């Protein structure tokens, strides 16, 4: 029996390959994810260990866990204590704060302030100088090489850096350094100084960390104990190795997050692959019904028939999983190469390899999915009666919709609709979104059950035009596409999964974009936003006053904010200039009553504080009556808004956080830009943002995310196309004699090829249409759970693109099977049984 199975497998190598490819791609993606993240983890660990080798002991402050805003620090006293411990050869305090670098235009460089760090002297220096030397004097500084490149500074130049009081200081740039794997520094950029200068510039009250190097023959563990004893409580003292391990563990958490995200797409791909395998085995069993019956006639038991199909699936599973692991290795290496090429802050130099875990996970998933998908077809094979061997011709499978199927399908659809409706009607939030997602999954199951029923009408709909345009091949193709509804349904549902998710993502992102921009347009028709790099920096009030005096500007709104405690929670409190152009639309309540002694609160904060319209809030010792709840998105002050008088009375020291400017109609963009820049010229820490540019950047980021997700979903679509190719080539095989008959009756080779292409086109289109409908509906439902007043937008062109692409992809999938069908000789095919 086993030998019969294996011989059968070998006889159909191409079919085996096509079937395996679906699983291979899925396993490859999953394995690739593991290879990538494992390699990144290993490289980080290596780097941390190398860094930590320079340190015997590191001291970290415990800090006040309750108050997160206050960065814990170590004092010079602590440093002195550590230096005094026996066995300490050297100890250095590490300073890190902000030290905004000014660009060549005299304004702060970039939207985030550069970090200021200390570059210690001697063996404890962990900064990798790539060019020039370390700073040795108070007038010298080094710059990270990426910032130097973007801001066009070279060694020998003079650079200007703002200190904590926003006073300019000049330094000679003596060297460049590499931030390595420090995510924070690589994001902001960094300027390095000598330890003392770093403290002066950043205004740091102490150190983040004290690094200790032990003398010769001193054990790190012993030194750790004596340093800890010398400092007493309130400090965490680690050996260098512990520090490296902890850093690596924290980093592994980050990669675990990436891994989970990528694996989600791997799971979707495997789901589609399972459908493809299920369909393939189903067709194979149907085609080999006579072979099975013959085996049964000559004495094979049901169990043996079942076993032979399962064995076949095991062979396919093992083969494709092993291939998948190899592909995963390649994918991982490829992804690393791409990340390296775009200068991602990831260490290089560690080779990719398959860990035991990757191998086990890949093999187990691949084999289990394949075998599980083949279970039902294998059971169907056991139901073939021995007598079937004697029938002349395999009957056309006729499909009748069973009552059970209709009832179950309808129940799932109803339940899915119900759960989704519940989610949509709920207040926006995570629960609502989860309900919609669950509703979507249940509804999809309903579609899966009912798919064989909807394939027929859909193929008539989709095939209407091709059947008229392409004559006999067109008509036959449309007939063929629905002649086996179950098969057609499974084939197309595989494609539907990918298209649904792609449509959903594009609907959600387009709607998000439209909602944000419409709200901003309606309520804050702002042209410029003046702000600062650092969260705690402020703008002198003179800036707003100065801008208000310019005739080119229609309105200038100053926003002041500060933190205060309300009901025991730290809350943002602020105020903004009342201006007729800024319509702050309340969600509930009315801004009409907004006046002295009252407050308006954004919805989320109101919920956090547990206040509603009419309640009274106590802030800075005074009570304010809440008159309105505001939208969370388009509000100048996130949190609690007071009138300007009330705010200035309660928080007299608060300066402007941002200034919003609306240019009068008819003023040229260059003119207004020049005036705004001139007004902010004296304040290097103040940043001018054009709202158009900001939105452009926002749009770009959103586009990027959409593109990445669509790309990752592309894998599932690719696998489903393999499924179409596979189904089609099996159907072609099944219809060998039919094709020969058509050729004998005068169908030309191109017509035969066209017939199969149209069939695939129709299948692709059906899958895409169902996907687009589901994606748009559940995309809409999902957006309803995000914020209250959603501006729904469906990216029609993009969605039409998905549909068209699916059709074309179907045609591409049909190329090989169609070629084979057209090449077959008529006489030979007629003779085949």
């Amino acid at each position: 029996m086993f030998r019969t199975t294996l011989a059968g497998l070998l006889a159909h190598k191409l079919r085996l390959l096509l079937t395996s490819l679906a699983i291979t791609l899925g396993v490859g993606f999953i394995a690739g994810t593991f290879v990538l993240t494992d390699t990144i983890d290993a490289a980080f660990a290596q780097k941390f260990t190398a860094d930590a080798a320079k340190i015997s002991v590191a001291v970290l402050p415990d800090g006040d866990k309750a108050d997160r805003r206050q960065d814990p620090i170590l004092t010079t006293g602590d440093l002195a204590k550590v230096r005094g411990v026996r066995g300490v050869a050297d100890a250095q305090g590490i300073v890190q704060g902000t030290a905004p670098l000014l660009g060549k235009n005299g304004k702060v460089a970039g939207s985030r302030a550069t970090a200021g760090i200390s570059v210690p002297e001697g063996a404890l220096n962990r900064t990798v100088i790539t060019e020039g030397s370390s700073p040795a004097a108070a007038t010298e500084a080094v710059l990270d090489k990426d910032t130097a490149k973007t801001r066009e500074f070279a060694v020998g130049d003079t650079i200007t850096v703002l200190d904590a009081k926003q006073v300019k200081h000049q330094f000679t740039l003596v060297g460049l350094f590499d931030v390595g794997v420090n995510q924070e520094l690589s994001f902001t950029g960094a300027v390095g100084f000598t330890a003392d200068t770093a403290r002066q510039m950043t205004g740091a009250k102490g150190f983040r960390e004290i690094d200790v190097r032990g003398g010769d023959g001193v054990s790190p563990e012993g030194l750790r104990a004596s340093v800890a004893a010398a400092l007493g409580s309130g400090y965490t003292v680690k050996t260098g190795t512990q520090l490296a391990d902890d850093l690596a563990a924290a980093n592994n958490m980050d990669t675990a997050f990436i891994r989970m995200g990528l694996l989600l797409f791997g799971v979707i791909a495997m789901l589609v692959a399972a459908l493809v395998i299920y369909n393939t085995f189903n067709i194979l069993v149907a085609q080999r019904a006579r072979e099975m019956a013959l085996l049964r006639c000559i004495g094979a038991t049901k169990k043996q028939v079942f076993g032979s199909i399962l064995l076949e699936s095991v062979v396919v599973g093992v083969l494709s999983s092993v291939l998948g692991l190899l592909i995963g290795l390649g994918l991982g290496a490829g992804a690393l190469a791409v990340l390296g090429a775009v200068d991602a802050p990831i260490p290089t130099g560690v080779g990719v390899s398959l860990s035991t875990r990757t191998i086990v996970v890949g093999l187990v998933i691949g084999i289990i999915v394949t075998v599980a998908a083949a279970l039902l077809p294998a059971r169907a094979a056991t139901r073939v009666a021995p007598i079937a061997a004697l029938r002349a011709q395999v009957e056309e499978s006729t499909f009748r919709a069973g009552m059970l199927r209709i009832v179950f399908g309808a129940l799932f659809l109803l339940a899915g609709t119900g759960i989704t409706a519940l989610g949509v009607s709920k207040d926006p939030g995570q629960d609502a979104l989860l309900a919609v997602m669950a509703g979507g999954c249940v509804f999809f199951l309903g579609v899966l059950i009912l798919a064989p029923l909807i394939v027929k009408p859909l193929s008539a709909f989709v095939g209407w035009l091709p059947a008229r345009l392409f004559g006999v091949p067109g008509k036959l193709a449309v007939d063929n596409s629905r002649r086996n509804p179950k098969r057609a349904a499974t084939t197309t549902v595989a494609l539907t999964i990918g298209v649904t998710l792609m449509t959903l993502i594009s609907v959600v992102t387009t709607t998000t974009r439209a909602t944000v921009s419409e709200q901003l347009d309606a309520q804050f028709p702002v042209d410029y936003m003046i702000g600062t790099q650092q969260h705690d920096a402020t703008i002198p009030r003179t800036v707003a006053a100065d801008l208000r005096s310019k005739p080119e500007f229609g309105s200038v709104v100053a926003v002041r904010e500060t933190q205060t405690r309300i009901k025991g929670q730290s809350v943002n409190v602020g105020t903004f200039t009342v201006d007729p152009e800024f319509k702050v639309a309340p969600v509930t309540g009315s801004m009409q009553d907004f006046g002295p002694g009252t407050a308006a609160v954004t919805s989320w904060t109101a919920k956090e504080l547990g206040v509603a319209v009419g309640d009274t809030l106590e802030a800075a010792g005074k009570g304010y009556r809440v008159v309105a709840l505001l939208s969370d998105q388009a509000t100048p002050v996130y949190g609690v808004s007071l009138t300007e008088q009330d705010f200035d009375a309660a928080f007299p020291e608060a300066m402007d956080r941002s200034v919003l400017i609306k240019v009068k109609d008819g003023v040229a963009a260059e003119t207004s830009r020049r005036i705004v820049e001139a007004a902010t010229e004296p304040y290097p820490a103040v940043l001018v943002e054009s709202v158009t540019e900001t939105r452009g950047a926002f749009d770009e980021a959103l586009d990027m995310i959409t593109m990445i997700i669509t790309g990752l979903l592309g894998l599932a679509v690719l696998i489903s196309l393999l499924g179409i190719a596979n189904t089609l080539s099996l159907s072609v095989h099944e219809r060998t004699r039919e094709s020969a008959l058509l050729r004998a009756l005068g169908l030309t080779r191109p017509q035969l090829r066209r017939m199969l292409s149209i069939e695939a086109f129709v299948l692709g289109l059906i899958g895409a249409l169902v996907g687009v409908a589901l994606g748009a509906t559940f995309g809409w439902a999902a957006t309803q759970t995000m914020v209250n007043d959603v501006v729904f937008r469906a990216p029609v062109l993009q969605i039409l693109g998905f549909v068209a692409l699916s059709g074309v992809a179907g045609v591409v999938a049909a190329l090989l099977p169609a070629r084979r069908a057209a090449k077959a000789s008529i006489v030979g095919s007629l003779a085949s049984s």
Partner: protein
Amino acid sequence: MTMTTDVRQAVTARGLKKVYGQGDAAVHALRGIEVGFATGAFTAIMGPSGSGKSTLMHCLAGLDTVSAGEIHIGDVEITKLNDKQLTLLRRERIGFVFQAFNLLPTLTAEQNIRLPLEIAGRQADQVLFDRVIETVGLGERLGHRPTQLSGGQQQRVAVARALISKPQVIFADEPTGNLDSRSGAEVLAFLRRSVRELNQTIVMVTHDPVAASYADRVIFLRDGLLVTELFEPTAQTVLDTLMKLEA
């Protein structure tokens, strides 16, 4: 023999040779056949198994290439045509009835009958269509799919389909091979009637002396050569000739 084609011959073959395979494995299926099939005649091809009957028919119908010799269908020398031209020729001038699997399972009987015309993009000759339909005698079963028809009915639909495009010649390879004698007789009677009433040319391969007796003429093959022929055959004369051949 003259080089001009006899207009009364629907199909002629000269020096027809067919070799399968090469070298030691070469099989000489046809070894120089000279034969003509008269317009409006019903000819049966007989011979022992492996004598080359099917091969001859496939070559004559342009379904297979020949190794040597030439074949004319009407005034067209089909041995000179490429695949595309052959396909178009089959569409216009040749009808087929196979032993089994004659009909497309997705189409109804009527759709199957109209299929060749649709492929050729031609309109059905309504008079002919009605007459064929009447002759085929399926009545209300025309709207049924092949699986809902008996074997004999299926073969009659196949014959009707072959007739509908008014081909110059219909080739039938053991059209009754899978049928019981009653259904077979129905199909054969139908074939003969279409020769008589529609002046159709039919060439039929068969193993069955009774089937052959429906024809106007029987030609006998042995080892790829035409060895003898009978006109106005009866089942008995055919059987006698076969016995002689196999002896």
